[in-house]
């Protein structure tokens, strides 16, 4: 124990002993059961259906539970559900809840809560919207049974209810689930393994979760969102630290226990520290995205988009994002996640090989580009996006384009990217974002890959070819057909430049060596995590 901690603890113990307070061993135990975690971003609002940020989802998996949960192979497994039945025509799904499930306020989890929660989830989730479009009936048959009747089969139902992509189909009490999906909930009661200590919440600084004693974990071993979510801590404190230097110093000093997103440049110093362990945070990694606006010039012309594809050098982007460690990134001539069973790079040749700036400039000229400024929305408070934005400004300038660089924060980017106005009137030309590898493994929950024009994700790409191939994937009857469909999707999306992947990269997470049970995944999983 270093000098400061010794001084501190002896003073505190002395003070408490003097005041005739708690016995010393009890204090030591209490401290050991609290874990301090530094999340990737601020937890400003805490409604996982309303807010689609990753950090909200990560906090929500502690507080709410789901009917199914995907494991590390992205296969949905039963969680709150004891069993399900599908009718032979595939049109009726009957779910039976486990017994003994309780909410944090002591009320039992009933089928009507499930129905209300699913009703709130559907309008906000693309797969939920697909289900709603073919829904005939969603009712609670009795206290423990839910029936969902469709007009067409939907084989991916379990995946939809158990996926880890936002928004997750969390089950909330009926009274909370009745809130309009476009307004925030104000009460955070769920049936998950931890309770949210709302009184101790300081948005922007701290969020506290306490163990829910009445949680009934499943008997299987925990594996991502599947299995028994056994909590071995009494208390988890999320300490929000926007300054990475401060977070790094705090981790080194033992003032926090686990840092979700250490920046790559600080990893060497953390690795050298004997009390800190460092490992890849998510084996499924991240896909960087150069998102173009297909609605307005210059990128409404496919040639202009292809010109950027030709000139874009993924190595520059990746080095800017992850630094000097080559094991952390790889080239990605694809929209899908490397290392997953259905990965394909068919049609991605344009992103491979040496860059041809001259040919790109010629193609740009052919598209009729005449010097309009490209409005680039670049979030400064997210390190990878800030880095990518600067590489882009350089790239576009090299192509001879005029750059209107808007440096702002992620919240504002989120707001402005929704605008369909032309660039001169509050619209935009491009912005950067990234997608977790887990979201890009298949087209199932991949909103950013869709090409359905006005209803598509920001950028509103209009690519009938891509849409056709995605439909063919959903209708595929076996793995062979799925794989073939993926190849076709990739080619179509590349040809129409739905967006440009800037590369595939992974990040680290770091934790103190007295913390055990930390696994890699798209979400920081707190079950089976222990602090010595």
């Amino acid at each position, binding site marked *: 124990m270093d000098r400061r901690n010794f001084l501190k603890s002896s003073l505190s113990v002395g003070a408490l002993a003097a005041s005739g307070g708690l016995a010393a061993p009890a204090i030591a135990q209490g401290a050991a059961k609290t874990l301090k975690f530094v999340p990737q971003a601020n937890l400003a609002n805490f409604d996982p259906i309303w807010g689609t940020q990753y950090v909200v989802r990560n906090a929500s998996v502690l507080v709410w539970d789901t009917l199914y949960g995907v494991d590390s192979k992205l296969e949905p497994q039963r969680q709150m559900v004891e069993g399900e039945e599908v009718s032979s025509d595939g049109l009726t799904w009957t779910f039976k809840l486990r017994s003994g499930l309780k909410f944090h306020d002591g009320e039992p989890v009933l089928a009507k809560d499930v129905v209300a929660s699913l009703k709130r989830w559907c309008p906000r989730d693309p797969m939920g919207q697909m289900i709603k479009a073919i829904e005939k009936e969603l009712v609670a048959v009795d206290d423990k049974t839910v029936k969902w009747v469709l007009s067409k089969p939907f084989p991916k139902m379990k995946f939809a209810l158990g996926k880890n992509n936002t928004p997750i189909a969390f089950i909330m009490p009926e009274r909370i689930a009745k809130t309009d999906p476009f307004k925030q909930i104000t009460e955070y009661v769920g049936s998950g393994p931890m309770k949210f200590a709302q009184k101790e919440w300081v948005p922007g600084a701290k969020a506290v979760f306490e163990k829910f004693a009445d949680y009934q974990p499943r008997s299987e071993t925990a594996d991502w969102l599947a299995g028994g979510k056994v909590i071995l801590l009494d208390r988890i404190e999320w300490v929000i630290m926007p*300054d*990475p*230097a401060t977070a*790094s*110093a705090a981790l080194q000093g033992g003032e926090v226990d686990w840092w979700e997103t250490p*920046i790559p*440049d*600080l990893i*060497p*110093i953390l690795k050298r520290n004997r009390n800190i362990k460092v490992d890849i945070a998510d084996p499924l990694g991240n896909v960087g995205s150069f998102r173009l606006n297909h609605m307005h010039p210059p990128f409404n012309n496919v040639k202009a988009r292809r010109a950027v594809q030709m000139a874009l050098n993924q*190595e*520059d*982007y990746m*080095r*800017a994002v992850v*630094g*000097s460690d080559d094991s952390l990134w790889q080239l990605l001539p694809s929209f899908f996640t490397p290392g997953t069973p259905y990965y394909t790079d068919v049609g991605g040749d344009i992103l491979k090989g040496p860059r041809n700036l001259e040919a790109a400039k010629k193609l740009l000229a052919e598209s009729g580009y005449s010097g309009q400024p490209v409005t680039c929305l670049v979030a*400064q*408070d997210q*390190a990878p996006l*800030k*880095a990518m934005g*600067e*590489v882009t*400004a*350089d790239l576009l300038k090299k192509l001879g384009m005029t750059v209107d*660089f*808007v*440096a*702002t*924060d992620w919240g504002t980017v989120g707001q402005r990217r929704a605008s369909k106005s032309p660039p001169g009137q509050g619209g935009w030309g491009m912005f950067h974002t990234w997608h977790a590898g887990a979201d890009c493994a298949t087209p199932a929950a991949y909103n950013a890959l869709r090409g359905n024009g006005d209803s598509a994700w920001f950028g509103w790409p209009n690519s009938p070819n891509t849409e056709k191939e995605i439909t063919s994937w959903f209708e595929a009857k076996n793995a062979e057909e799925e794989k073939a469909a993926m190849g076709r999707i990739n080619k179509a999306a590349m040809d129409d430049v739905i967006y440009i992947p800037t590369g595939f990269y992974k990040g680290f997470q770091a934790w103190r060596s007295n913390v055990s049970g930390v696994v890699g995944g798209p979400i920081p999983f707190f079950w089976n995590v222990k602090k010595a």
Partner: protein
Amino acid sequence: MTVTVSPAAESAVLAGEPELPDILPPVKQRRGITGFIYRHPAIAIGGAMLSLLILMAIFAPLLGTTDPAALAPSKRTRPPSAEYWFGSDMMGRDIYSRVIYGARVSLIVGFAVAIIASLAGLVIGLVSGFVRWADSIIMRIMDGMMSIPPILLAVALMALTRGSVPNVIAAIAIAEFPRVARLVRGVVLSLREQPYVEAAVAAGTRTPMIIIRHILPNTIAPLTVQATYICASAMITESILSFIGAGTPPIIPSWGNIMADGRALWQVKPFIVFFPAIFLSITVLAVNLLGDGLRDAVDPRMAKRL
């Protein structure tokens, strides 16, 4: 006990002039530049440093710099070396070049804010001092604006628009001019009571002439001193704005920007923050010294006050 008489004194006596004994050595009055430096060290040192920095900023392309915006992500965060004199930042850009070019932004922001705030404050202070019915309204508004801490005001203003050098200048100038207005108004009020001004009014001189002839010359001195302090304060405020992320866009290198970029890495690559910090501190120091020196020179009484 004889008093020796020098030949000069002898001839003076012979010429009929009274002769003063040589009990004190003659005071050496240093002339020229050295004299100036000796009498006003602050102005000399501050002015010299500032001039050097301005020259450095103007002649940036000739000082061995490369394009400050040139990216080379494969060569990021290299420590200082022969190739990168101050090292390279997280995008592989040469920090030396960015610091030298960054001087331009910081100096421009500093001077522009000083000039704009001084002029705005001058005009408003004059109006407030002369137009009695407007005085209390204007001063209330100035008090109100001064009640909002300047950094908060500047950040809030920057939140309204996007980051750019003119916007930063405007935001900081708006936060600073109320103090100048107060100062000028104070001077005007005190001068208005002076006999020579009353005489000029009695003689029928119109107000504009009074302002130009009598008021302005007396405001120039304290205004200039205040302007140098505003310049120094503006440069620091710009760096704080950039630090928070509400300042000049990252494409344009300014010392604040470079420090903000490198702040996450100060523990492992301190040179990214170190060099712009040194330059900023030296510049602000120079301006402060200049201001102190000017104040001492302009009003020896004020020298003791502040």
